[in-house]
């Protein structure tokens, strides 16, 4: 046991890391113990042998190669994200894809606001409402019977003809006992002094554009585009008179028969060109998004009404760029 302890201490004794008292004790013991002296000698020889092992030299290219890697690392830090490890990039990429998907969805929805509207008249009855109020009818029990005969198909975005501004409608007498006479609502004066104050034309059910109470004097010689009263027939395609070629179709209606969505088409050369969408609330007030379209299908004007009052509007050039400047309020649904 003592010998083992001695040999353990011999290693430290050789390294000179043993306290002086213990060192003296060991030296005293070594004088009398041949075995420990031999062990000390062998251990010293072993360490000498170990120390004879030659050092290897680094290759000449080593510094250069190491520094090249260091510089590459510096550059990688500088470039940042591109050289992030995959574990760091993956969540960011997933988030980016989700974000872009949501953005694309909203953009698509804005570009194609009512993708089915243009086809609706051809697939199904343009609903029950057209001209009902205008005609003063009280019988709304058979909407299917009012399905408009469609003789041609068309695509809303496959349009060639230039849209001409419809002439102001011929002033007409109000139909007898209209079922819904929407109140006139004053628009907000969002345009300042220079602009005319448009009336939030209420939607006299599928009649003409409007029957405004305040507006320019109707022109006597109304042009061909003027919307004439809806035919008082079972057909709901609501064509204009012989000169005109506008067709207003109520695609949706409220429970009381008030039109909810009215789409106006121009029929030219067997083609239907969507000109406008108008939305109303159950009271007949203009309510929701109103749109006017170019013949190309691009949105020309877009406005938001709330209960007959204009909230905001946007006007777009034919290439879809939002126009700057002030509107002249020469909007489809306000033309008189």
């Amino acid at each position: 046991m003592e010998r083992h302890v001695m040999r353990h201490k011999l290693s430290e004794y050789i390294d000179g890391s043993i306290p002086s008292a213990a060192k003296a004790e060991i030296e005293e013991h070594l004088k009398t113990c041949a075995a420990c002296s031999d062990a000390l000698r062998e251990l010293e020889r072993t360490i000498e042998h170990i120390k004879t092992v030659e050092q290897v030299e680094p290759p000449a290219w080593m510094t250069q190669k190491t520094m090249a890697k260091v510089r590459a690392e510096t550059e990688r830090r500088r470039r940042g994200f591109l050289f992030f490890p995959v574990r760091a990039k993956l969540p960011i990429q997933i988030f980016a894809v989700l974000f872009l998907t949501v953005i694309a969805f909203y953009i698509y929805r804005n570009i194609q606001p009512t993708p089915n509207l243009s086809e609706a008249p051809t697939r199904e009855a343009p609903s029950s409402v057209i001209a009902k109020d205008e005609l003063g009818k009280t019988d709304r029990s058979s909407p299917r019977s009012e399905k408009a005969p469609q003789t041609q198909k068309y695509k809303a975005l496959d349009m060639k003809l230039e849209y001409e501004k419809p002439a102001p409608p011929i002033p007409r007498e109000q139909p007898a006992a209209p079922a819904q006479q929407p109140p006139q609502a004053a628009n907000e004066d969002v345009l300042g002094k220079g602009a005319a104050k448009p009336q939030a034309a209420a939607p006299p059910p599928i009649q003409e554009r409007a029957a405004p109470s305040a507006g320019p004097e109707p022109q006597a010689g109304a042009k061909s585009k003027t919307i004439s009263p809806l035919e008082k027939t079972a057909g709901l395609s609501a064509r204009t008179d012989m000169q005109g070629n506008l067709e207003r179709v109520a695609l949706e209606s409220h429970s009381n028969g008030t039109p909810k969505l009215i789409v106006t088409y121009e029929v030219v050369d067997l083609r239907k060109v969507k000109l406008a969408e108008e939305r109303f609330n159950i009271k007949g007030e203009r309510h929701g998004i109103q749109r006017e379209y170019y013949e190309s299908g691009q949105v020309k004007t877009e406005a938001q009404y709330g209960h007959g009052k204009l909230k905001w509007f946007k006007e777009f050039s034919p290439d879809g760029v939002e126009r700057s400047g002030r509107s002249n309020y020469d909007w489809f649904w306000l033309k008189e």
Partner: protein
Amino acid sequence: MGNTASDEDADLVSRTRQGDLNAFESLVNKHQKRMLNIAFRMIGDYDEACEAVQDAFISAFKNIMNFRGQAKFTTWLTAITVNHSRNRLKRMRSRSGHEAFSLDAPVKADDGEMVADPPSKEPSALDLLEKRYVQGRVQDCIKALAPEYREVVILRDLQDFSYEEISGVLNMREGTVKSRLFRAREAVKDCLKKIMGEL
């Protein structure tokens, strides 16, 4: 353990932290030989040791901002080199299924032939040859040590680190360092006596 004030590398480290690549290159030039010898004695393969040392310097550069100067730069760099050498050694062994050297196993000579277990009677006519022979045997015996014993021998007897520095590099108490060093030296001694007969 040393501190930054007594660390002769403090200035170069400080400049490296400020983005001076030339300062870091000076550190590489200064320490790469020592680090390479540590790695080489631990791994036993020169090319792998070179790779390990390069990786160690890259790691040191990446983490130089985390080096707070509580130890000498040499100690810190050596710890990194030892870690990279350990990892590379593990990968090499897992690749080749290579078993660690056993003190009782036959030792392979430089020429590829198995050296007889009894003491070699090969005459050492020339001192140089004898020296090379002894060196080769010593290397074999060091190589035969288990890694945790090999590390302390390399650091103490080949690289002259103090117990305190070894304690810092290997992150262990000084008592453990002394104990391992004694066992490692005893193992090398026994190995050499087996091969060479007497010391």
